[in-house]
């Protein structure tokens, strides 16, 4: 794994939004890109099927579409292709279809955020954890700070006491 050079995150983020996993492929992070693509695209497709090809539409389901459009081009293409679809029979797993398509959009948001983080801060393995801010510990004096509260040596412990 080579060190990723810092680069502008905007183009990879736009690509990551349009094509799930595409932003990672552009910044040469093949495995994360493939995993994101394999996690998001089948999930969105299955959600579309379970929803009867009717549940991705800005006109019919505007609130769901806010989350679904985060999946990028698949959501846009599905909305265009299924514009005139009308459900005639009730579907048994329609709500699961809504869940899948919305979850796919939200997972693509994770992919977009990860592309941004990899472009600006490097891969997760190379990132250094930020130091803990000084909290209450800095205000509380510990025993090691001064010798006053340290327990005195017991007579049995000191060699002089034993000799006496």
């Amino acid at each position, binding site marked *: 794994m080579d060190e990723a050079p810092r680069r502008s995150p905007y183009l990879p983020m736009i690509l990551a939004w349009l094509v799930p996993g595409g932003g990672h492929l552009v910044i040469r992070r093949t*495995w994360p890109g493939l*995993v994101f693509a394999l996690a998001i695209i089948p999930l969105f497709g299955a959600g579309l099927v*379970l929803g009867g090809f009717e549940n991705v539409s800005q006109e019919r389901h505007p609130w769901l579409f806010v989350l679904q459009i985060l999946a990028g081009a698949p959501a846009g293409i599905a909305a265009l292709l299924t514009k005139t679809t009308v459900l005639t029979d009730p579907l048994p797993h329609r709500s699961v279809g809504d869940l899948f398509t919305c979850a796919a959009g939200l997972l693509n948001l994770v992919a977009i955020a990860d592309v941004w983080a990899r472009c600006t801060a490097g*891969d*997760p393995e190379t990132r250094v954890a930020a130091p803990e801010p000084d909290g209450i510990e800095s205000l509380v004096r510990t025993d090691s700070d001064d010798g006053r509260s340290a327990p005195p040596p017991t007579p049995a412990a000191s060699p002089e006491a034993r000799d006496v």
Partner: protein
Amino acid sequence: MSDTLVRALFYVWVCAAAGFAQGAARATTPAGILRHGLRSTVSLGGGIALLCAAIWLLMRVTQG
């Protein structure tokens, strides 16, 4: 296959997708993605299963 089982499989699928997406965001190598992905899937699925069990128990108690 009962409707409940089918629905449970769907939830396993969405948990696995979310878990492996989180794994892909935490690692770069295939082994790291697999390790983080499995761990995230188990913790996410376990959390949702516990939540579902708690809701089911609450419904049983409140409905007598």
